[in-house]
């Protein structure tokens, strides 16, 4: 065999061996499937900033046709659910305190009178400030309902009207932004841990010496160890993608090919980090500690949950060495906005640059730390 085909044959042998070793171990088989499903579903249902269910109570002191009409607007949204109809304002504190209602609406007895007189009719909302963001959202919803009610009653347009259109996510459902970002996040977790454990496991089992006395070169071992986690990461990304597409029914706007290309490049940039960890760590326990040391900041600084623009400038600069930041940005754009290759390609540059640093670093560590 020529030296190139021998090298390829060696790498092939290593990849087969790594995949078999990972897939034949019942413990790692579970790790491959379950966390993706559990985390996918968990994030899908918990990571949302939308308010879909507002329990409220009402004190209607007016008991008029108008007050009933106003309340029917609220009930008609499907979001507001009336849990109590109070007879006096004294009862308000009770329903708020025991968290029965998030919001209490008080319609004063002169509500219809004022309306008929063409005067402003105040309606009071009391919200539970122990959870300010939800309270704020709920109060905001009430005022937009009131605005709509005003227009309908008066039949005339207000002078300035804000018509907001949210592009790429017309219904402003935060889940749409969250779930596609989970595709790279879950793949990252897995690739980092799999690549990290690959050498440490062999070292613990004593198989690494056996590997090192074969004619396999460190570079061959490096490539042979890098490819299987990437393949497994891609399978997991696909699993998550299916979950997003078919369970949460979020439509993929962009091209599937570009999405996969992006994920692949992202995984290549991560695997070098995992392998470097593997070469440095003395045992599997250390690998896990190192992995979490890297994972948490990578996720926090990626813009997955909180906007990067809100971070202090120093941290914003740090995000530039985080491949996760670019991956999430690129994948959101492909998924939601349908961005093409030419649009997301610039994000590949930092990811590839990182790969160009971590992979040779891993190779160097392999050569120097392993023998």
């Amino acid at each position, binding site marked *: 065999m020529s030296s190139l085909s021998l090298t390829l044959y060696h790498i092939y042998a290593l990849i087969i061996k790594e995949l078999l*070793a990972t897939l034949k171990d019942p413990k790692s088989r579970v790790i491959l499937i379950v966390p993706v499903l559990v985390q996918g579903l968990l994030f899908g249902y918990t990571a949302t900033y939308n308010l879909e269910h507002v329990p409220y109570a009402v004190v209607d002191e007016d008991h008029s046709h108008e007050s009933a009409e106003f309340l029917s607007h609220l009930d008609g949204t499907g979001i507001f659910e009336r849990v109590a109809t109070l007879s006096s304002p004294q009862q308000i504190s009770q329903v708020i305190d025991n968290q029965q209602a998030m919001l209490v609406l008080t319609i004063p007895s002169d509500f219809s009178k004022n309306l008929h007189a063409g005067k402003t009719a105040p309606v009071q909302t009391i919200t539970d400030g122990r959870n300010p963001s939800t309270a704020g959202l709920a109060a905001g919803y009430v005022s937009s309902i009131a605005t709509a009610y005003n227009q309908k009653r008066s039949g005339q347009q207000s002078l300035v009207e804000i018509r907001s259109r949210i592009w790429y996510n017309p219904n402003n459902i935060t889940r749409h932004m969250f779930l596609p970002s989970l595709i790279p996040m879950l793949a990252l977790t897995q690739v980092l841990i799999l690549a990290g454990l690959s050498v440490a496991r062999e070292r613990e089992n*004593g198989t690494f010496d056996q590997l090192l006395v074969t004619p396999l070169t460190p570079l061959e071992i490096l490539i042979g160890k890098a490819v299987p986690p990437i393949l497994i990461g891609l399978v997991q990304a696909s699993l998550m993608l299916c979950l997003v597409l078919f369970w949460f029914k979020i439509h993929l706007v962009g091209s599937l090919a570009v999405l996969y290309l992006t994920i692949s490049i992202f995984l290549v940039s991560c695997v070098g980090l995992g392998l470097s960890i593997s070469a440095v760590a003395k045992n599997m326990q250390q690998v896990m500690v190192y992995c979490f040391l890297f994972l948490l900041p990578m996720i926090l600084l990626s813009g997955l949950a909180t906007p990067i623009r809100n971070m202090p400038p120093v941290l914003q600069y740090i995000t530039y060495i985080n491949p996760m930041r670019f991956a999430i940005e690129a994948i959101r754009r492909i998924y939601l906005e349908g961005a093409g290759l030419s649009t997301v390609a610039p994000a590949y540059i930092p990811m590839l640059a990182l790969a160009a640093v971590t992979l040779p670093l891993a190779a160097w560590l392999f050569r120097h730390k392993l023998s």
Partner: protein
Amino acid sequence: MSDIIMIQAHHLTKQFPARPSSPAVTALSTLNLTVKKGTLTALIGPDGAGKTTFMRLVCGLLQSDSGSLSVCGYDVQQSPQAVQDRIGYMPQKFGLYEDLSVMENLTLYADIHSIPPDLRQKHFRELLDLTGLSPFTARPAGKLSGGMKQKLGLACTLVSTPDLLLLDEPTVGVDPLSRRELWHILHTLSEEKSLTVLVNTSYIEEAEQCQYAYILHKGQLLADGTPESLLQYARGRCYAVRVPQGMPPRFIQSWLLDDRHVVMDAVPEGSQVRFTVSSRQLPNHLLLQNYLPGAVITPVSPRLEDSFMILLRKAGSTEEETPGMPSLPKVPPAISGDTIIEAHDIVRRFGSFVAVDHTSFSVHKGEIFGLLGPNGAGKSTTFRMLCGLLSASSGTISVYGVNLRTARARARSYIGYVAQKFSLYSTLSVYENLCFFGRAYGLAAHKLQERIETVAGQFHLNNCLSMAAGSLPGGYKQRLSMAAALLHDPPILFLDEPTSGIDPLARRTFWRQITGLAARGTTIVVTTHFMEEAEYCDRIMIQDRGRLIAIGTPSAIRHQGGDSPTMNEAFIHIVETGRQKEDS
């Protein structure tokens, strides 16, 4: 010695139920055993004989299934705490705290046993003097040598001044010098302090130093008695055959062992090969005489080991199946003297510590070359440098004419390597393991299948090709490791402590395999801590404190070691002389 009985076991039985990974095991079956106060008693037997199980029962750490066991006058099942207050138990892996110093470890164990502070100083001094650890009280336990760790373990066990001392294989992995010192301590304890000691050991010559010995095998008691009385099993059955000039003793041993129904055991020893036969009379014709017509055979006096081997052979091998042995040529191939491995002035430093110091030697084509030395002598480091697992700090190593520094990957294609611990992929099947290692050595397609078939046949692995390697029994695992190492038919085979942890019968079988391999021209480099295994080698090299102190044929080494009768003594002699020279 008094007649007070410290341990009395009657029909003691212990079974371990079946698990998914292993079938049910009867660890001890109806064992009767008595240990009298003030005696030194040995429990001998191969791995899996039930020795450790018995000790754990004595300590009350396990519950027996039936039978009775009383220790220090208490029923262990009824009052384990009363027993535990009176005994000292040193398991195989004693719980030393590696980051604590010698003194801190001792203090810790004194605290655990609530030894009053006023008694401690005197007691500690006695123990430290006894174990020779006084100069090292400030050294962290992790930095001690294997032998010193065992001595510290012993000292910690003795902190509570027990009436009965239980030692589980205290000398495993300990070099001959430290072993001798440890036994010296045990004798002192037994004679001067009249402490009762029960020792598990797989070294038969250690049992010879005890007053009483029990031979266990697969949970059954094969024999018991004083070492002297146990000799009866071998009396009149032991012979020695002189090794002709220029003939490797292992050939004669192999020819003897191949005579399976007549010869019970054979071991090379210097210029002769000792063997035992199944009947009380030497048969008229031995297979050996076909190869060596003028063999000079003389009767020799029996040893405990001879009895042990005869008893084991009669009880049946622990091996599931003995693989067919490679046939040997009628005339041993001559060793050409061509150099196949050359180490020139190699040095290996770890920080400021010099593990191997300016060492040069060469290995000849077709020979069996042994690396011997106490723990920490540098033999593992040398071995790892030779097979390319470690690079030398300076000096050059060439393997099969290839410089390890410049063409490491190519040099590695000429070697096969069997690690001390089973180190193939446990989750992969036997076949997948062989495929992987074959491919790693560049074997492909047809050639790969052909070689897998050959080695699987050679090592009798055909029936378990689809089994996960990790689920194989011990003997199979070793054969698989050998098969994987020989797939690419390497001219050189490296074996790291290949016989540690396997029973004496399997060890003979293993060496018989090696003799066959060497006869076909494979060069073999082997490390071992069984000194008697040096006799299988064509040449051996002894290192101490990183320096090469002796190299040559076993008989030359024996001569250098003051013409000692056993390799063990020769070894101790050479190491001690070397150290005296260095110190003076």
